[in-house]
C-alpha cells in the first residue's frame, strides 16, 4: 500500500525532469501508474466490500506515536477507487489536452503529487497522517492553480485557495490533536469502534474545528469563493479537483467521522444549514454565469452543499443518498469539465454567449455532454435520477427541519434541469456559432473519449444499479454505523418523490424557456454582494497588512534610543513587579560595616559624581556629556581607593581613560549636539533612567544584607600558593583557576584587533 502511494510521489519528479524528451511515453506512464493503482485497490474489493478490513502499518516516528498506517474498509476503498480511476481517466485526457503546453512536465508532476496525496488522505488510518495528506493536497492544488504563473489572476487564485484551505488545515490539526487527547488514540479505526459517547469536554471545540476544516476544503458558504477562482488551473485539473479530489476531501472527512459526531447538535445543524444555503446559493449563482467553467464551478458548490446537507440530516437513508449522489456527481461533473475543456481547446473560448450550434462540428463531444447533462438534470434512466430520487425520499421522510432541506434540494434541482438544458442543448443545437476565436472542429482522442466514457458510465450505472449498490453498500453502512442494506433502482413505484421529480423537470424546463425573463428577477444574483465573502477575504488581508505596517513602523522605528528606552522600561517594570511581589524592601538599611566618613575629602569624589550626573541631564553637547560621564567614572575609581581596593581602582582608571580617548576620537564624526524632539520625550527618558537607577540601588541595598560566605574565597586563598604556584591570588585566579575565562577575553581582544584592522584598512566602496 505504501509502495502504491509512494510510487506516485517517486514518479512525479522524474516526470518533471524527463517529460519533455518523450512527452508521449511519460504522459502514458502516469496514466498507467494511476490505472495500476486502481487495479491494485480493486483486488481488495471482494474482501473489503463484504465487510472485511485491511491494515497496513509502518513505523515512522514511534516516540511521538506517529505511524504510517493505512486501512481499507468499504468507504476508503470506494474513495481510493474513485481517486485512482478518475485519475487515470483525467491523466489520459490531459495527455491530449496538454500536448502543446509549454510546461506540461510540471503539470504532470503536480497532478501525480495531487493524486498521491488524495489517495493517502482517504486511505490513512492515523489522523496525523490524514492531516499530512490533507495539507499536501492543498499544496499540490496551489501549484496546479498557479500553473499559468505569468498571469496575475492565476497567482492570486492560487494564493487564495492555499490560504483558505490552510486555515481549514490548521483547524483540522487542532481538531485531531484534541481528538487524540479526548480519546487517547489517533487511529480512525479505533475511533470508529469507540463506544464512548462524544460527550467529552472538548467535543464542541472539535466539532467546530472539523466543520471549519470541511467547509473550507469543500467550498461551503461562506468559504466557497476560492473554488470558482480555482478554475484558473488547466481544465483537467478542474475536472479532477471537482469530481474526485480536493473538494471531496471535506465530504470524506464528514462521512468518516459521522458515526462519532453524528449525534452532536452543532454537527447536524451546522451541516444542515451550511449545506442548504450553499446548495441554493451555488445553483442560483450558476444560472447567471456566462463562463462555462465558472458555471460548472458554482454547480459543484451547489452539489457539495447537497451532500453536506444530507449528511447533516443524518438518517440512514439520507447518508445513503449522500454517498450515492457523490458518485453521481463525480461522473457527470468530471465529464462536463472535460467537455468544457474540449470546447475551450477547440474553439478558444468558454463564453456561453458565443457558443451555440456545435452539433455538426463536435458530435462526439456532444454525445458525452448530453449524457452527462441527463444525469445532472436527474432524468431517467440516468444514474442521476436514482441519486435524486434518494435525496428526495430522505428529505421527505426526515424529521423536524428536513423541510428546509427538501425546499432547497427542490430549488437547486430545478436549476440543475434548467442548466442541463443550457449546457446539453443550447451549446450544440440551433445555428452554428461564427464568433469563436477558432472555428470549431471536433477534438481528437481522449478529449472527447474521456467525457463520453464518463457520460456513458452515468447511463450504465443508472440502468445496472446492482453495480453501484454493490460498490457503495459497505461504504454507506460505515457512514451510518448500521448494517442497513443499500437498494438502488430506477423505479420505486408511484411515490411522492416521483411526483416531485416530475415537478422538478417541468419547473426546470419552464425556467429554461423563460430564461430571458428570469434573468431580470435573477439580477439580484449578479449583484456585488454575492461576492461579499470574497470581499471579506480581500479586505481582511488588506487590513491585516495595514495593521502590520502600522505596528512595524511603531516598533521598528529606526531610533536606537527608542529601542533602548523599551528595553530598559521592560526590565525595570519586570524587576519592580518582582520586588513588589516579594516585598524585597531593604531591611532598615542594615550595613555590615559601619560606614563612617573619617575624612572630609572622601566626599570630594561623591561631589564630583553628583555634579557629573546633573550636568549630563542638562547638557545637549556630546562633548559635555562625554566629559561629565567620565567624571562619574573617575569618581567611582577614586572611591575604590578609599575603600581599600587599589587594584580595582587602577583598572577602573585605565578603562575610563581609554574609553574617554576612544570616544574623543570618534566624536568628530558624529553630530555635535543631541536633539530630542520634545520635552515629553526628554521627560520620558529621564523617568526611565531614574527608575532604572532606583531599581539597581534597591537591589544593591538588598544584596548588602547578605554576607558573602563563598567557599571559593577560602579555596583560592589556601590553594594558590601551593598548587597555583603564585602569591598574588588574583593573578592565579586569572591565569590558572579560571584560565579559560582569560583565554576567552584574550580572544575578544584579538578579534577586536581584527575588527579595527578591517575598519581602518578594508573599505568596500558602495
Amino acid at each position, binding site marked *: 500500500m505504501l509502495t502504491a502511494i509512494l510510487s506516485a510521489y517517486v514518479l512525479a519528479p522524474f516526470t518533471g525532469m524527463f517529460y519533455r524528451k518523450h512527452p508521449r511515453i511519460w504522459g502514458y506512464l502516469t496514466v498507467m501508474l494511476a490505472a495500476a493503482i486502481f487495479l491494485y485497490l480493486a483486488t481488495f474489493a471482494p474482501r473489503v466490500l463484504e465487510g472485511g478490513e485491511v491494515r497496513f502499518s509502518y513505523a515512522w516516528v514511534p516516540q511521538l506515536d506517529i505511524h504510517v498506517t493505512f486501512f481499507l474498509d468499504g468507504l476508503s476503498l470506494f474513495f481510493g477507487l474513485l481517486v485512482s480511476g478518475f485519475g487515470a481517466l483525467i491523466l489520459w485526457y490531459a495527455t491530449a489536452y496538454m500536448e502543446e503546453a509549454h510546461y506540461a512536465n510540471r503539470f504532470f508532476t503536480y497532478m501525480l503529487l495531487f493524486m498521491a496525496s488524495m489517495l493517502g488522505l482517504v486511505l490513512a488510518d492515523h489522523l496525523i497522517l490524514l492531516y499530512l495528506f490533507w495539507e499536501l493536497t492543498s499544496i499540490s492544488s496551489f501549484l496546479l492553480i498557479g500553473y499559468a504563473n505569468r498571469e496575475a489572476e492565476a497567482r492570486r487564485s492560487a494564493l487564495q485557495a492555499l490560504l483558505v484551505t490552510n486555515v481549514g488545515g490548521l483547524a483540522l490539526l487542532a481538531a485531531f490533536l484534541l481528538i487524540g487527547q479526548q480519546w487517547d488514540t489517533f487511529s480512525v479505526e479505533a475511533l470508529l469502534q469507540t463506544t464512548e459517547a462524544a460527550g467529552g469536554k472538548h467535543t464542541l471545540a472539535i466539532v467546530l474545528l472539523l466543520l471549519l476544516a470541511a467547509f473550507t476544503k469543500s467550498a461551503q458558504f461562506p468559504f466557497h469563493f476560492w473554488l470558482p477562482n480555482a478554475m484558473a488551473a488547466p481544465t483537467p485539473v478542474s475536472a479532477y479537483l471537482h469530481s474526485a479530489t480536493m473538494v471531496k476531501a471535506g465530504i470524506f472527512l464528514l462521512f468518516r467521522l459521522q458515526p462519532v459526531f453524528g449525534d452532536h447538535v452543532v454537527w447536524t445543524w451546522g451541516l444542515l444549514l451550511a449545506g442548504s444555503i450553499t446548495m441554493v446559493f451555488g445553483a442560483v449563482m450558476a444560472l447567471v454565469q456566462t463562463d462555462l467553467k465558472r458555471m460548472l464551478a458554482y454547480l459543484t458548490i451547489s452539489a457539495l452543499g447537497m451532500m453536506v446537507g444530507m449528511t447533516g440530516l443524518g438518517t440512514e437513508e439520507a447518508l445513503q443518498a449522500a454517498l450515492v449522489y457523490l458518485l453521481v456527481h463525480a461522473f457527470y461533473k468530471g465529464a462536463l469539465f472535460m467537455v468544457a475543456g474540449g470546447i475551450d481547446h477547440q474553439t478558444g473560448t468558454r463564453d456561453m454567449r458565443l457558443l451555440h450550434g456545435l452539433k455538426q462540428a463536435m458530435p462526439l463531444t456532444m454525445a458525452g455532454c448530453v449524457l452527462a447533462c441527463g444525469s445532472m438534470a436527474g432524468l431517467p434512466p440516468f444514474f442521476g435520477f436514482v441519486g435524486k430520487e434518494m435525496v428526495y425520499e430522505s428529505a421527505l421522510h426526515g424529521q423536524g427541519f428536513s423541510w428546509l432541506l427538501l425546499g432547497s434540494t427542490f430549488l437547486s434541482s430545478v436549476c440543475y434541469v434548467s442548466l442541463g438544458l443550457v449546457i446539453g442543448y443550447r451549446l450544440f443545437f440551433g445555428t452554428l456559432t461564427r464568433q469563436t476565436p477558432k472555428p470549431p472542429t471536433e477534438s481528437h482522442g481522449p478529449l472527447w473519449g474521456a467525457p463520453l466514457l464518463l457520460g456513458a458510465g452515468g447511463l450504465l450505472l443508472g440502468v445496472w444499479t446492482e453495480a453501484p449498490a454493490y460498490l457503495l453498500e459497505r461504504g454507506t453502512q460505515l457512514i451510518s454505523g448500521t448494517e442497513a442494506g443499500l437498494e438502488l433502482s430506477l423505479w420505486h413505484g408511484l411515490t411522492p418523490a416521483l411526483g416531485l421529480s416530475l415537478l422538478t423537470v417541468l419547473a426546470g424546463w419552464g425556467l429554461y424557456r423563460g430564461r430571458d425573463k428570469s434573468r431580470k428577477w435573477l439580477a439580484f444574483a449578479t449583484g456585488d454582494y454575492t461576492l461579499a465573502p470574497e470581499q471579506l477575504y480581500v479586505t481582511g488581508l488588506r487590513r491585516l497588512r495595514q495593521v502590520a505596517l502600522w*505596528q512595524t513602523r511603531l516598533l521598528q522605528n529606526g531610533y536606537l534610543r527608542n529601542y533602548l528606552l523599551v528595553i530598559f522600561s521592560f526590565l525595570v517594570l519586570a524587576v519592580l513587579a518582582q520586588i513588589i511581589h516579594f516585598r524585597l524592601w531593604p531591611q532598615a538599611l542594615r550595613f555590615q560595616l559601619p560606614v563612617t566618613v573619617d575624612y572630609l575629602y572622601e566626599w570630594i569624589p561623591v561631589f564630583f559624581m553628583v555634579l557629573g550626573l546633573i550636568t549630563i541631564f542638562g547638557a545637549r553637547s556630546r562633548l559635555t556629556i562625554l566629559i561629565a560621564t567620565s567624571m562619574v567614572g573617575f569618581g567611582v575609581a577614586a572611591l575604590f581607593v578609599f575603600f581599600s581596593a587599589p587594584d580595582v581602582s587602577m583598572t577602573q582608571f585605565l578603562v575610563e581613560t581609554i574609553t574617554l580617548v576612544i570616544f574623543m576620537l570618534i566624536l568628530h564624526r558624529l553630530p555635535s549636539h543631541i536633539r530630542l524632539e520634545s520635552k515629553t520625550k526628554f521627560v520620558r527618558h529621564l523617568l526611565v533612567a531614574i527608575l532604572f537607577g532606583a531599581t539597581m540601588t534597591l537591589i544593591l541595598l538588598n544584596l548588602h544584607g547578605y554576607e558573602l560566605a563563598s567557599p571559593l574565597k577560602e579555596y583560592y586563598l589556601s590553594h594558590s600558593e601551593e598548587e597555583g604556584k603564585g602569591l598574588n591570588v588574583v593573578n592565579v585566579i586569572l591565569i590558572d583557576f579560571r584560565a579559560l575565562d582569560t583565554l576567552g577575553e584574550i580572544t575578544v581582544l584579538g578579534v577586536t584587533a581584527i575588527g579595527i584592522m578591517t575598519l581602518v584598512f578594508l573599505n568596500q566602496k558602495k
Partner: protein
Amino acid sequence: MTAHILLVPLLTPLLAAMACLFAWKKKQWQQYIYLSGSMITLAGAAALAWQVLQEGIVSIQAGGWEPPFGITLVADAFSVLLVVVTHVLGVLIYFYTLPPVSVSQERKSFGFYPSLLLMLFGITGALLTGDIFNLYVWFEVMLVSSFVLISLGNERLQLEGAVKYVTINFIASALFLAGIAILYGMAGSTNMADLAVRLRADGVSDIVYVAMLFFLVSFSIKAALFPLFFWLPASYPTPPIGIAAIIAGLLTKIGIYALIRTLILVFPDNAFVQQLLLGMAILTMLTGIFGAIAQYDMRKILAFLIVSHMGYMVMGLAIATPLALAGTIFYMVHSILVKTNLFFISGLVFADQQSFHIRKAGGLYERLPWMAALFLISAFSLVGIPPLSGFWGKYMLASTGLATEQYLLVGVALLTSMLTLWAVSRIWLPVFWQHKGAEKQVTLTQGAFVRKNRGMVVSSAALTLLILWLGFQADPIVEISIQAAEQLFDRQAYIDAVLKP
C-alpha cells in the same frame, strides 16, 4: 581520558583561527586552514555527540581544579546536538561563501575566516561551558566576532546596522553581568551545577528571582524576543549574504539555549517568569510575523520571520514540560537549518537578479526551476507543512500546549504558521512566479549560472537534503530531543555529573 574529546570541537576553531592570522592576506592559505579546521571540528563534534548519546553527560574540569573552584566544561545531549548542527553549518558556509557574490574576495582575504572561526569558537564555548561567568565570556567572544563580521567591509548601511547591533547587545551583556553579580553575591559561586544546588537551598532570598529577570532580559535580547528584538531586523539584512546567513541561522538560538539552560537548570521555578515567557512567546510570534508581512526586502522578511519563529521556541520553555521542551529543541535544529537555507536561497536569487527586492526580482520559476524547488522545500518547511521538518516541532509544541490547556498560545502558534505561509508566498509569488518583463535582462544560461556560483548552489542543495532528511526521517532527532529534554529536567543527574565526576 575519553572525556577530552570535548576539547576537540572547542579548541580546533581557535587553533585554526590563529593559523589563519599567520596567513594574513593569503586567501588561499586561509581557505585551506578554514576548511580543514571546520571539518576536524565537525568530526570532533560528532565523536563527542556519539559519546554523550551513548554514555550520558560528559564533563571535564579545566586545569584539573576540582569543581566548583575551576571552570567545568559539560556536554549533555542538548548541547552536543547544537554543537553538531553549528559545525555542519560551519563546513557548509565555507562552500557558500566561495563565490564572490556571497562574500567579496577582499573581505575573504582580510579577516573573514579568522573572525568566522572565532565566532564558531565562541558558540561552541557557550554551548559546552558549565560555568555562568564563563558563559558570559563566550557571549563576548561571539558578540565581538559577529560584530566584526557584520561590519566587515565598512559599507555605510553595514555600519549603521552594526552600531545598533553592538550597542544593544553590549547592554544585554551588561545586564547578564549584573545578573551574575547578584548570583555571586548571594551564593558565592559561578558553577552552574553548584548554583543549582545553592539557589534551591532553604533560606535563599527571593532576590534570586530578580537575578532571574536580569538573565531573562539579557538572553531575550540575544534571542530577539518581543519587546527586545529591534536590533535583529536592523542589522541582519545589512552584511553580505554569506555572513548574514550564518549569523542569522545561529546566534539567536544560542540566546535561547542560554535561556533554557539557566532557567531550567540554575534557577528555581517562578510563576511570574513563566507567565512572562508565555506573553513574550505570543507577542514575539505575532509582532514578528506582522513585521515580515510588512517588508519588501527578502532579507528583511526573513529577519522578521526569524523573530516570529523564536516565539515557538519560547513557547516550549513557557509550557515547560519535557515534551514541550523537546519540541523546542527539535524546533531549534530545524530553525537553524531552514533559516540559514532561506538566506542561502535569497543570496542565490540576488546572484541571478541583482536584487533582494521582491518587486525587482522575478521569473525564477521558469528560469531556474531547481532554485524554485529549493525555496519551496525550505519555505513550506518553515510553515510547518508535514512531513517537512517544521511540522514535528510544531506538532510537539501544539500537542503539549493543548494538553496543558494553553489554548491561546496554541491558537496564536497556529495563526502564526498560517501567516508564515502568507509571508513566504509574498516571496514566492513575485520572485518566482511573476515575470517582471524585459527590464531584467539576464544573460547567463542556467549552466553558466551554476558554474559561476557553484559553491552557493551546492551548499544550499546539501542543506535542503538535510532538511528533507530531518522531515522524513524525523525519529532520530526527535529521539535525541526527547532525551535532551528529559536530561534537562533531570537536574540531579547534571549536578552529579559535574560535582561528583
